[in-house]
């Protein structure tokens, strides 16, 4: 089956101002990323700050054109789409943002916020549809006339989700949608996303630094480090037995709310290097407990290591024979 979204060698380089008269510096936010997302699937994209996860989401949505690489939707190359093609594409792909307060126009009431995409795309009966959407995210109709400052963060995030769903997209990118919410509210939003996914048959790319939330929502996980995807695979298997040493470090660093299972015994070494001056070879090698000489000179390819499991690591043997897809 053709994946709903496929990116191929996608790169996004941002130029920064360098020192006066010095060379300009380039941030390699995304570095030749390959990823496939099947229809109906929920993929968790995890990584620490500077890993490129947000940039990947935004580049897929074509909020900015990629430096190089291709983006395919339903097998069609849509890289650099413009005009009506882009408009049609945007209708199918929507985003839910981290901070609901900065993602909405505070001078508009909630009815206007939700119906805005309907108006822009000239959808008939937008009144009825707006009420339906509000109901879909579990908010009462009385909210239509309220303003963002009159509702809580969790309620406003529901509004953000309702707006993203207004045009019946098949693909949602949610970028840390629960990061600014308190625990008691966060659970409401996670449950809502899980329900909506099933009810509407959505495909979801869920961007988060919080593995426990990804663990609730997603079937497959992609791990990023310094602009590269370093491991992709089924969630349960990655949790049980991470292949890449960085994934292992990341999972081992998650604090647990169970005092009988304190895990912070051996914290991972070192800090995340800058995306301007990346280490040679594998970007993780200066922090890696398994580093070998080859790791300092050659970036390992993202290759099939076991059925359905990909990792970019010299220390993990590749799957033999049927190595081609």
């Amino acid at each position: 089956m053709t994946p709903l979204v496929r990116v191929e060698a996608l790169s996004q380089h941002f130029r920064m101002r360098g020192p006066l008269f010095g060379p300009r510096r380039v941030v390699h936010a995304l570095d030749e990323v390959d990823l496939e997302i099947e229809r109906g699937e929920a993929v968790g994209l995890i990584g620490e700050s500077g890993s490129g996860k947000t940039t990947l989401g935004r580049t897929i949505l074509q909020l900015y054109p990629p430096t190089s690489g291709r983006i395919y939707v339903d097998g069609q190359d849509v890289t650099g789409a413009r005009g009506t093609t882009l408009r049609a594409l945007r209708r199918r792909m929507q985003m839910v943002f981290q901070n609901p307060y900065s993602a909405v126009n505070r001078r508009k009431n909630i009815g206007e916020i939700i119906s805005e995409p309907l108006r822009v795309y000239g959808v008939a009966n937008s009144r009825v549809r707006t009420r339906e959407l509000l109901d879909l995210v579990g908010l009462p109709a009385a909210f239509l006339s309220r303003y963002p400052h009159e509702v809580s963060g969790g309620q406003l995030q529901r509004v953000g989700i309702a707006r993203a769903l207004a045009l019946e997209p098949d693909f949602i990118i949610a970028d840390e949608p629960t990061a600014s919410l308190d625990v008691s509210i966060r659970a409401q939003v996670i449950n809502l996303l899980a329900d909506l996914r099933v009810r509407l048959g959505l495909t979801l790319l869920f961007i988060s630094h919080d593995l426990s939330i990804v663990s609730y929502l997603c079937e497959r996980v992609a791990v990023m480090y310094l602009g590269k995807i370093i491991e992709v695979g089924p969630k349960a298997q990655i949790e049980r037995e991470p292949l890449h040493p960085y994934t292992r470090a990341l999972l081992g660093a998650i604090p647990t709310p169970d005092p009988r299972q304190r895990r912070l015994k051996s914290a991972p070494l070192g800090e995340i290097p800058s995306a301007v001056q990346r280490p040679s070879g594998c970007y993780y090698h200066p922090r890696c407990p398994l580093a070998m000489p080859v790791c300092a000179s050659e970036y390992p390819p993202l290759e099939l290591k076991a059925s359905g499991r990909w990792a970019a690591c010299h220390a993990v043997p590749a799957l033999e024979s049927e190595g081609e897809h």
Partner: protein
Amino acid sequence: MQNGTDRPGTLLDVRGLTTRFATDRGLVHAVEDISFTIQPGEAVGLVGESGSGKSTVLRSLLGLVKPPGRVVSGEVFFRGRDLRALPDDELRRIRGGQISLIFQDPVNALNPSLTIGDQLRRMLRLHRATVPPDGFDREIMRMLARVGIDATGKLNGYAFNYSQGQLQRIMIAAACLAGTPSLLLADEPTTSLDVTIEAQVLQLLRDLRQELGLALVLVTHNLALVSELCDRVLVMYAGRLVEDGDVYSVFEAPQHPYTRQLLRALPRFPASGERLEAITGSVPDLVSPSPGCSFAPRCEQYLGTVCDTKVPPLFDAGNAHQRAACHLYT
């Protein structure tokens, strides 16, 4: 309520602490009648969601509440002396010397226009009379080395020359090693850090605490951090203390319905496969707090009128080391 607070060894004894903020909407009852004690060397997590008053408690202890906020009443006994009754200059010497603080954002806690070396020298001058000025730099290098920073030739660097994680280590060095503290107050010390760096900082805090016999009050919204680092946990909701107990009891058999519901709403890793149980409703408005229990409207064990009309005090609940402010335990 007395809760064994007269034990001779008690390091910190907080009684009836109440702090309010004057806003144009009215008085915000940020902290209402909080009492707790800390024993020497004990690590206590003060947890709650945003607006629960946990950070305000910390600031109130040290006289750091700024107008329009004001500590309205209460006593804060540190080694038997009421900090609220001390003159400013004496309080300032205790702050940073015997009681140290670490904040969430190390970037804002440091002065961007002074070198790291200058800022640490100032702290030594203020809190460590035993070190002669010509020995400051060697002492600073030793302090920084202890927190994993090789500062050879880098003391003239500024905050922007260091990463977030390094700055938080520097803050920890300043807090734990510049003076001779017996109590460390940390307000969300790892919230701005990435998870691998957070793990390093937590480990460092745990080691230093053991090494120096420091008591710790860790203010956080993250229950997992409390479970990793603390012996005891204080749970706050809407400005009040609702549960107090040792970590094992509270995490395994929470007694207050809020604590119980909160733990069930927490995503676990790996996910259990079960649905998260969200707490319905949202936090109350602290301008007009309920005359009864603030959690009553969201409580799954709501008992009726008594919950709406009477604020429950902390009752003994669960095991011997646990108390909960809930009418279930009258």
